């Protein structure tokens, strides 16, 4: 047997990327960024506020963290729900105690279902970004474009209406996209999105409807990734975040300001046996003189002003 001869043809083989969305550009070659008030590290604490429906359809895949057992998977449903009911109130207390400014990434369906929680987040005045409709409404390659346009519009209209914020940021469920997602986001008033984990600083991302900024929300320090995928302990998560901070701080001595992004979930770190380690991290970072704790859009604004 043999493969078709096209398998040994390389039409995108030339300098730079194999697509037109952004420029090839190494971080170390860029102009140093200066953060306000001489701070070195912009801290972006991103809290995922998610709804995993019990009647998960899993199209085109079962979302990580979703239902795994036959219907009705009360086990995973209620463990996820724990975060929105119990864990997030531990988060609020810890964030406020250590003067950390969070950004909340909310599923629109969650905001619809839980007026109390949505009202509480809204009253706090923190930035909210849209995390898609719910964790089972994935954006994926080959998705019908009409269907995806309707999904994005429903998610954004719904969340903007419920929170009264003019939402500008987006992170897709499971950070998964179709080939059209960035174009549709730009068309719907989104200015930055957080699905591409290929950089540590913001960069320009081309769409059919103008430029988006790709914001670096790393998966590497995500509590879901470290604790549930890699099966490291919450204590180890803490060490990894603090080690990352020290390295980035050192890098700022020769390069510009850096961003430490931490994507966390109340159904994971909000558990009573884990919350202490989140508190240690927030305490350490919140009291460090090099840290500028702020929202995703403030970081973006400061970056654009450079």
């Amino acid at each position, binding site marked *: 047997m043999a493969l078709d001869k096209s398998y040994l043809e390389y039409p995108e083989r030339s300098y730079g990327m194999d697509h037109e969305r952004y420029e090839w550009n190494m971080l170390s070659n860029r102009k140093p960024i200066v953060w306000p008030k001489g701070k070195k590290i912009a801290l972006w604490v991103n809290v995922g506020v998610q709804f995993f429906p*019990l*009647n998960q359809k899993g199209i085109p895949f079962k979302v990580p963290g979703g239902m795994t057992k036959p219907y009705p998977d009360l086990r995973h449903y209620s*463990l996820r729900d724990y975060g*929105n009911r119990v864990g997030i109130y531990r988060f609020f207390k810890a964030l406020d105690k250590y003067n950390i400014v969070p950004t909340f990434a909310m599923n629109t369906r969650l905001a619809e279902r839980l007026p109390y929680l949505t009202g509480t987040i809204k009253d706090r005045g923190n930035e909210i970004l849209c995390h898609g409709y719910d964790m089972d409404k994935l954006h994926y390659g080959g998705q019908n474009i009409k269907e995806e346009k309707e999904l994005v519009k429903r998610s954004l209209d719904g969340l903007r209406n419920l929170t009264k914020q003019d939402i500008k940021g987006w992170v897709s469920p499971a950070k998964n996209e179709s080939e059209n997602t960035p174009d549709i986001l730009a068309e719907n008033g989104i200015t930055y999105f957080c699905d591409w984990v290929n950089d540590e600083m913001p960069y320009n991302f081309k769409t059919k409807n103008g430029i988006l900024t790709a914001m670096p929300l790393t998966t590497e320090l995500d509590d879901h990734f470290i604790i549930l995928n890699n099966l490291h302990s919450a204590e180890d998560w803490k060490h990894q975040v603090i080690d990352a901070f020290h390295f980035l701080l050192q890098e700022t001595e020769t390069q510009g300001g850096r961003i430490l992004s931490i994507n966390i979930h109340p159904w994971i770190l909000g558990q009573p046996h884990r919350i202490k380690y989140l508190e240690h991290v927030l305490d350490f970072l919140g009291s460090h003189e090099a840290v500028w704790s702020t929202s995703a859009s403030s970081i973006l604004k400061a970056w654009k002003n450079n």
Partner: protein
Amino acid sequence: MKEDPGYYDYWPYENRPKIKWPNGAKVAFWVAPNIEFYELNPPNNPFRKPWPQPNPALPGYTSRDWGNRVGHIRQMKLLEKYGIRGSISLSTALCDHHPEIIELCKERNWEFFSHGIYNTRYTYGMSEIQERDMIKDSIETIYKHTGQKCAGYLAPALSHSENTLDLFAEVGTELFGDEAGFYSCDLFHDDQPTPIHLRSGKRFASIPYSLEMNDTIAYLVQKITPRRYGQELKDNFDRLYAEGAESGTIMCIPTHNYQVTNAHRIKAYEEALEYITGHPDVWVTTGKEIATFFLDNYYETSLKDIQEKNNRYGIR
């Protein structure tokens, strides 16, 4: 198919009415040993394979049988040492297979609650009548062998239908009125008891049975080391003890006699038990006693607070 189970309302974990456990305890602490029987040749279920290998699946079967032959006594002695009565999540066929274990637990006044007949018979695919019959069999078996009117339920292998909690409550009422079928361990959404909506309107509570502290989840899913498990138990307790000063919390350690009692794991478990029971404001109790106390003292208060909280920002 529903997007949520509909058993409970949203109830934010802030400013809840203060629960005071007996003697001013901050944490109601209970240990739930699962005493299970897994079959060597279970029938097929269309929705879940009982074992990864074809029957006879020795690796899974024999390690669980080891739990009953070797591990049970070890854990029983340990719990006794720290003044803990187990609340047994029971595969009720074990009453027929291993009555010696039932006798030992009876002598110690442990609680027995239903965990189905066998842990290799799943609820998936059962008709409502079949599930009802299975639950009824399990409650009757517990009564026949122990004289206890079964108060609590944890579905076998956590396999559920949309009606599981309703059926359990209804069968409890049919057999023993309000004395049976009034709490569930099947939901993991909270660290305090929650009123549960049932189609019968029966007073019924969800009692936290922490899956996160469950030894099987810790060892087989999270794959943590024994010492880490011991530390997680202590961390979990510390937080619930601190928060319990505001309103009483619940800590449960669900165990399996084939996991936590292994010679290389039991020391970390013992250290955690010693640590927890060494604190002054701990109510060392059983699932049924917590559920009864909650239903008698805080059920209405909780419903009222849930209503008020949800009115604050409007109900969806």
